[in-house]
């Protein structure tokens, strides 16, 4: 009798939980652009776009104290929007945190996402990618006076690395260098910068262009090692199977690379860190 009641309560709790999450999944659609029309059509009809970017990544996508947005990802997004016929005033910026990116696209809360979004096979199950518009490499950021970390092969002798918990760079360190180094995982990259500056870790690691953004924020104090050891293809996340939208985004990226604004944006955003700007990548089929 008593066990029976426990089971009943358990079932009710579980059912309530499922209902709540189901509601969470269903709501929210329609706040951005919605409907079955593809990206090109929507941009043409509404002259408005909702674009997902990072709000907290200096040099790539950063919300500044005055409420404007700056960074390479922001410039790419603006350029694509312009090619689609949408002026800057028609863009609504939306924060796209790493874990939410697929959901934002699937629910139609954003039209596309430009937020250091690496193209992976798992993600292709949920979204389509335009681009890549940039190829980043996992790299190391050290204090300027550091001389003994020269690349991944110098990660020996119990050195301390910092990265964001659960992130792909952190997992790479764990699988490849776990025997020689220790990894401090933190909640945000800025925590790593703090730890790096006060000396409690020897290096921080993630994609080079992200590191370059942080290095540019602390002129003269941090330097990029410059020996990347992975390839991350940054793409523009779109609704799955939006072939027209993908083609239009690819065309815009190519135009941006050719008319020099691609190079210029990188130089002004991450150039001050001394980061060598790589060649523009070829668009994937």
């Amino acid at each position, binding site marked *: 009798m008593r066990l029976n009641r*426990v089971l009943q309560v*358990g079932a009710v*709790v579980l059912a309530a*939980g499922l209902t709540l*999450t189901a509601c969470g*999944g269903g709501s929210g659609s329609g706040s951005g652009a919605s409907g079955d029309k593809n990206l090109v059509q929507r941009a043409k009809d509404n002259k408005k776009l909702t674009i997902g970017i990072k709000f907290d990544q200096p040099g790539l996508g950063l919300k500044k104290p005055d409420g404007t947005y700056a960074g390479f990802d922001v410039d790419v997004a603006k350029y694509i929007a312009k090619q689609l016929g949408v002026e800057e005033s028609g863009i609504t910026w939306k924060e796209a945190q*790493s*874990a939410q*990116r*697929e*959901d934002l696209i699937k629910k139609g809360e954003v039209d596309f996402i430009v937020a250091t979004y690496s193209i*992976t096979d*798992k*993600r292709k*199950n*949920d979204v389509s990618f335009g681009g890549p518009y940039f190829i980043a490499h996992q790299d190391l950021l050290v204090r300027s006076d550091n001389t003994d970390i020269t690349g991944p092969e110098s990660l020996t002798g*119990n050195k*301390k690395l910092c990265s964001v*918990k*659960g*992130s*792909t760079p952190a*997992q790479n360190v764990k*699988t490849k260098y776990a025997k020689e180094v*220790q*990894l*401090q*995982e*933190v*909640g945000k990259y800025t*925590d790593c910068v*703090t*730890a790096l500056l*006060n000396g*409690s870790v020897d290096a921080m690691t993630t994609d080079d262009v992200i590191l370059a953004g942080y290095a540019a924020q602390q002129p003269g104090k941090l330097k990029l090692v410059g020996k990347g050891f992975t390839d991350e293809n940054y793409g523009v996340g779109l609704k799955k199977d939006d072939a027209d939208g993908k083609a239009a985004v690819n065309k815009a990226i190519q135009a941006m690379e050719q008319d020099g604004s691609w190079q210029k944006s990188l130089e002004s955003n991450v150039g001050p860190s001394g980061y060598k700007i790589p060649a523009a990548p070829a668009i994937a089929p």
Partner: protein
Amino acid sequence: MFDFLSNPDYDLVGAFWTTIQLTFFSAIGALIWGTILVGMRVSPVPIMRGFATVYVNVFRNTPLTVIIIFTSLGLSSTLGVNLAASDSPTSLADNAFRLAVLGFIVYTATFVCESLRSGINTVPVGQAEAARALGLNFTQVLGLIVLPQAFRAVIAPLANVLIALLKNTTVASVIGVAEASLLMSTMVENESDSLFYVFILFALVFVALVLPLGLLLGWVAKKAEVKR
């Protein structure tokens, strides 16, 4: 659905074992420190009463994430207070774990203290007065007469604190303790196509940990109750 669990990189048992260890050590520490705090709060010495009151009000009203991040960035990185030998090959992980336990003790002890104080209020004043009349001093009155009865009255509220603590341990991932929520971050990063199932999995394991704990302590509370 849950086929991502077959990936050998995901040490689900290990992650939840760390969660349980965090809870265990923090609970013991918080019980001891909370008992000392409540002793101070009801003591006749004004400076001890003042200290305990200020301590409880400061740490109870500080967000746990702030306390945990402070142990790492403030205590360890900036002030250089390290709880593990810095030349050991696992110093970062050990240090993070111990700092997290320290943070949880500092925070949870305030709730233990306040629960116990309400328990002390359930003991009739006459008992303490009778004990004083027999010539017992303050420590004896508290330790022999008041606290044993107070503890029996607050097992249910303390069970609430323990359950809250178990769930609060997920905050430890922000300083890199390899517990359940850090594994969840990893899965969220890799398993973008089955996010929903990742969340459901972790929710269910937490329910599976908390439900028996709640039922057991509820039963103990009933057994230990002081009949008045």
